[in-house]
């Protein structure tokens, strides 16, 4: 466990420089260089062939859909699409690649020199993209003999090559200086924007929890006016929240070392989801020399300008445009919209509205009660066990007067506990606003006789005092009355 500085103190003294490398698995039907299926969740080693197993003599052929998807990503990230590009072999020995090399790209990536704009706290940050290139994913290793399935203490490893050869797009940023204390938020906003862009292109479902988007976070610190520091590379940061935490942790850790006059070593570090800490991996001094060379088994690519322009013209509405349109449609202010974006709720609210509720109703639940629940659980909003359709159904019940907000929150408890849809939960738990006016009137009469002084005040014109009686009625009905209706009855009786 490293010594850590207080975050706010650290960013008063040091300026962070970020860098992000993101890997995204494409949603093609087949692998990058062979016709094996890419379907998720198949039995181990049932989606392999001579090409992806690297049997002698097998010849790879590039998947056209993967090239097209990568060009689309490049265009959406404002990149230049190469006129001439090729694959290269990245040589290393590790059992997750049966070939002893990974087919990747080196000096001639498909796409270069782009940018993404993200807004944090109302300030726009332009993240420069260095390159977008295409490569292949590795197999999955299972470590046996160790206590926790990790390599440490393992006696052997078991390999499944179903994932080996699935097209993987790597997106690398240029160093991002100038984010100051907001570095964690900017890093998170960038990955979220990237994910939304790729999702909008329909080239990957980008499910971070399934590992279809994986992030490496580079970070260095320097004092203002000084040269950039030595960076560390934190590998496999696999959720938006983790991206933020990894940056924050490295700022705190590195600044404590620098304060003590210790040099930062350029190294790979691992992120631990459970603790939010990073720990050292391989140090770059002993890092592999990948001996890249042009892949002799694959033909070079010359994406024609006509084809590139055709793809550009066919790009869908991108997230930034979409957010502007939705903000106008929903009638939200800039601040409120920023909260929606920060909570990662744009898609959730859009789907909730599409399921038939008002924007106000959808925003209320996702930014209010449901955000609170997500925070409590340390989960992301989209990972909660409630769908936009269910939220729309819930708000529909509130609109119909069948639930009040208090009962609705109890219904949410049930939905999150897996008891069914809001209608089913309300029925099972007997949660429904008492609409029987006879019963309500009796409860009001009882409250009035139990609180004569309050009743007198209301008769005297102090309507605000009705709150006490409403509270008494709500208590008597276990919260299952509609406060508005109760108020109306009280004022009718005493007004």
């Amino acid at each position: 466990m490293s010594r850590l500085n207080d975050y706010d103190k650290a960013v008063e003294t040091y300026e962070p420089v970020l860098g992000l490398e993101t890997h995204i698995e494409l949603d093609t039907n087949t692998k990058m260089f062979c016709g094996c299926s890419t379907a998720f969740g198949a039995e181990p080693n049932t989606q392999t062939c001579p090409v992806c197993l690297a049997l002698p003599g097998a010849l790879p052929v590039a998947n056209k859909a993967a090239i097209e998807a990568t060009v689309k990503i490049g265009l959406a990230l404002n990149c230049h699409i190469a006129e001439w590009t090729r694959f290269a072999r990245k040589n290393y020995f590790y059992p997750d690649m049966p070939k002893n090399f990974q087919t990747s790209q080196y000096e001639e990536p498909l796409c270069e020199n782009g940018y993404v704009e993200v807004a944090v706290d109302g300030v726009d940050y332009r993240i420069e993209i260095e390159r977008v290139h295409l490569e292949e994913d590795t197999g999955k290793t299972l470590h046996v003999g160790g206590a926790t399935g990790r390599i440490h203490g393992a006696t052997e490893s078991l390999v499944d090559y179903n994932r080996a050869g699935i097209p993987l797009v790597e997106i690398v940023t240029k160093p991002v200086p100038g984010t100051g204390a907001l570095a964690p938020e900017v890093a998170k906003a960038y990955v979220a924007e990237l994910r939304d862009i790729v999702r909008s292109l329909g080239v990957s479902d980008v499910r971070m929890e399934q590992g279809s988007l994986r992030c490496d976070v580079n970070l260095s610190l320097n004092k203002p006016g000084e040269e950039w520091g030595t960076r560390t590379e934190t590998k496999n940061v696999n959720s938006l929240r983790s991206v933020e935490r990894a940056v924050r942790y490295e700022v705190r850790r590195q600044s404590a070392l620098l304060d003590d006059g210790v040099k930062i070593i350029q190294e790979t570090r691992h992120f631990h989801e459970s603790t939010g800490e990073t720990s050292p991996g391989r140090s770059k001094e002993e890092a592999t020399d990948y001996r890249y060379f042009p892949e002799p088994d694959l033909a070079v690519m010359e994406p024609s300008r006509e084809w590139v322009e055709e793809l550009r013209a066919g790009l869908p509405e991108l997230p930034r445009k979409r957010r502007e349109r939705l903000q106008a449609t929903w009638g939200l202010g800039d601040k409120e919209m920023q909260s929606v974006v920060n909570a990662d709720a744009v898609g959730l609210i859009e789907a909730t509205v599409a399921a038939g509720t008002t924007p106000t109703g959808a925003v209320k639940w996702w930014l209010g009660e449901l955000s609170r629940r997500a925070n409590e659980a340390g989960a992301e909003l989209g990972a909660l066990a409630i769908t936009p359709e269910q939220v729309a159904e819930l708000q529909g019940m509130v609109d119909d007067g069948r639930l009040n907000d208090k009962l609705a929150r109890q219904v949410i408890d049930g939905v999150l506990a897996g008891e069914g849809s809001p209608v089913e939960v309300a029925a099972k738990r007997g949660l429904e606003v008492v609409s029987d006016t006879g019963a309500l009137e009796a409860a009001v009469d009882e409250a009035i006789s139990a609180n004569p002084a309050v009743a007198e005040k209301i008769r005297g014109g102090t309507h605000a005092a009705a709150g006490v009686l409403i509270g008494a009625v709500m208590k008597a009905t276990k919260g299952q009355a509609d406060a508005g209706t109760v108020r109306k009855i009280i004022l009718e009786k005493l007004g």
Partner: protein
Amino acid sequence: MSTISREEVAHLARLARLEVTDDELDAFAGQLDVILESMKTLAEVDTDGVQPTSHAVPLVNVFREDRPQPSLPRDAVLAGAPDTAEDRFRVPRILDEEA
């Protein structure tokens, strides 16, 4: 005098996962020198304005459609493995890196 040092040969051997004895280091350094020397002949050719070749056949844009083809049966796949367990390839533990 070798232009390739013993250390460089040792480094290359390590990258290629080859076990090389001390005597072999000297022998290989000498042999690699001869190879490099012969290759220098090529450097005498004037290649100004010639694009580097990436492939023996002058083809570009060779792609396949994104249509699944049958994979190999798992039994056949694992039959070629030195060792298997739980329908997977069994390999010695991997050192020096944490997954």
